[in-house]
């Protein structure tokens, strides 16, 4: 007699996670290395400004929105911030997740209380719903939306939903929901290198590159 829910959890945190982490790490490194190897044509002209300084500055400065754009697209910006911050809080400060980092890297930090974690999760989910709404309600955004965008939206929402349901035992067998939670994370890891989720790694390179172009021209980025 087997507990099928626990067997699924064991598969999710065993072989399935192994496969997911291979694709996740291998895929990220492959794409980053490929970008670096391809490189850019050397600009022979002497720089007018400070490309490196502007590059580094841009990596951070583009975290805050350009002037006026929050008013122009409030849901995109505010929703985007809430989703990212909420996701990070739930991901990095829920103790069972910290246990994972401790096992992988040997480093640990104090976890936060359930009220904060669950509040952050709920806000992140609400933000995702708002972002989805703006995406489909605005005809221009809708026409710009690709299959990739919908998949990424769903894959980002699933770990939040399943984690919340598993911890609060809202419905379904909690062990089964925990298995679904790990499986949804595995799916996110697998999709990561091949979708726009890659921005979590490449944003640094892209911002630095844009900053250096401006710096080279003597402009402020």
């Amino acid at each position, binding site marked *: *007699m087997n507990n099928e829910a626990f067997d699924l959890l064991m598969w999710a945190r065993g072989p399935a996670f192994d496969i997911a982490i*291979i694709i996740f790490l291998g895929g990220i*490194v*492959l794409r980053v*290395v490929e970008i670096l190897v391809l490189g850019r044509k050397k600009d022979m002209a002497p720089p007018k400004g400070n490309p490196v300084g502007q590059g580094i500055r841009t990596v951070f400065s583009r975290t805050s929105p350009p002037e006026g754009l929050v008013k122009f697209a409030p849901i995109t910006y505010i929703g985007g911030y809430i989703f990212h911050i909420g996701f990070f809080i739930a991901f990095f*400060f829920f*103790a069972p997740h910290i246990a994972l980092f401790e096992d992988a890297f040997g480093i640990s930090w104090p976890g936060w209380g*359930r009220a904060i974690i669950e509040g952050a999760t709920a806000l992140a989910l609400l933000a995702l719903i708002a972002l989805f709404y703006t995406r489909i309600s605005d005809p221009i955004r809708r026409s710009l939306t690709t299959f990739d965008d919908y998949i990424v939206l769903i894959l980002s929402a699933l770990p939040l939903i399943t984690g919340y349901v598993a911890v609060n035992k809202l419905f379904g067998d909690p062990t089964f929901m*925990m298995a679904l939670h790990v499986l949804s994370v595995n799916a996110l890891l697998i999709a990561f290198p091949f979708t726009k989720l890659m921005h979590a790694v490449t944003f640094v390179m892209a911002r630095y590159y844009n900053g250096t172009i401006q710096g080279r021209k003597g402009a402020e980025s």
Partner: protein
Amino acid sequence: MPNKPMLKDLMKTHGVSRRAFMKYCASLASVMALSPAMVPRIAEALENAPRTSVIWLSFQECTGCTEAITRSHAPTIEDMIFNAISLDYHHTLQAASGHAAEEAREHAMKEHWGEYLVVVDGSIPIKDPGYSTIAGISNLDMLKDTAAGAAAIVSVGTCAAYGGVGHADPNPTGAVAVSEIIKDKPIINVPGCPPIPVVMTGVLAHFLSLGIPELDELGRPKAFFGNAIHDRCYRRPFYDKGLFANGFDDEGAKEGWCLYKLGCKGPTTKAACATVKWNNGVSFPIEAGHPCLGCTEPDFWDNGGFYKPLSVPSGDYRRLGLAAVAGGAAAGVAGGLLAKATKAKAAKAHETVDAHDLEKSS
């Protein structure tokens, strides 16, 4: 069975008062999550219950389950109930041995055919029946033979219920649970390594008074195995606050904080440990400072390590991750170089065209 003493008479001879008996029935109803209205029914059923013949079969086991049940504190009513059954065969507890013991079993079977209760502890080896025999009879044969005339079977302990330690990887004896062999009899699983004594006696009392209790999908009585330990754990508030012990001797452990990060399986383990507790309600493993091993769940020996938190991957992901980084880097360099070569080839093959050429071709 008019010549058999009824429980009512046994209680009288043991000096158990009516009040104590009714209190026991009420606590039984409470622990099994039954309506208080059921108390008189339980009392009546138990009072009029004849001594049911019980045949206790011990197969591939460590005797821990028997050790546990014999620690029900005499002269409690649980002990009384246990004494009130006629334990006709139990090769650890009975005085007889060898063929005399087997004769007792055969006699009990013949006399109570179709009515006796079989209690099994231990798994059954099916790879080679010779791995475990009693008086030259293989466990498999003895179980089949004895189960044939049973009213019901109670699989006591995780070995009998789900295969237990014998079934753990690589399972050298081909150990299986009772339910893998017996398909035509009602089976009540009372897993645990060992099960809580009051849960064992509670299940027996339920069987005597109200028949087979409501079971979950793993064959366990819902009354005792309905809730995850995590949901009834007195350390749960620390989990909710994010306060965890990181070692067995750190500040968190001394403060009595949640043991999740030390591998506690409370969130996925259904058992009554946190409510009924052990040794007459004194304590239970988590209260003693040790994470729950999940011993009431199938294959708990192989569920990713006792001291590994549930959220931590159970495979060799670190080594695989490093290999993936190396493989990814190599593939990235290869891909980049290939793209560069394609670009160079295209540049080399590129032919310049001017307006005259275009005019010529048109």
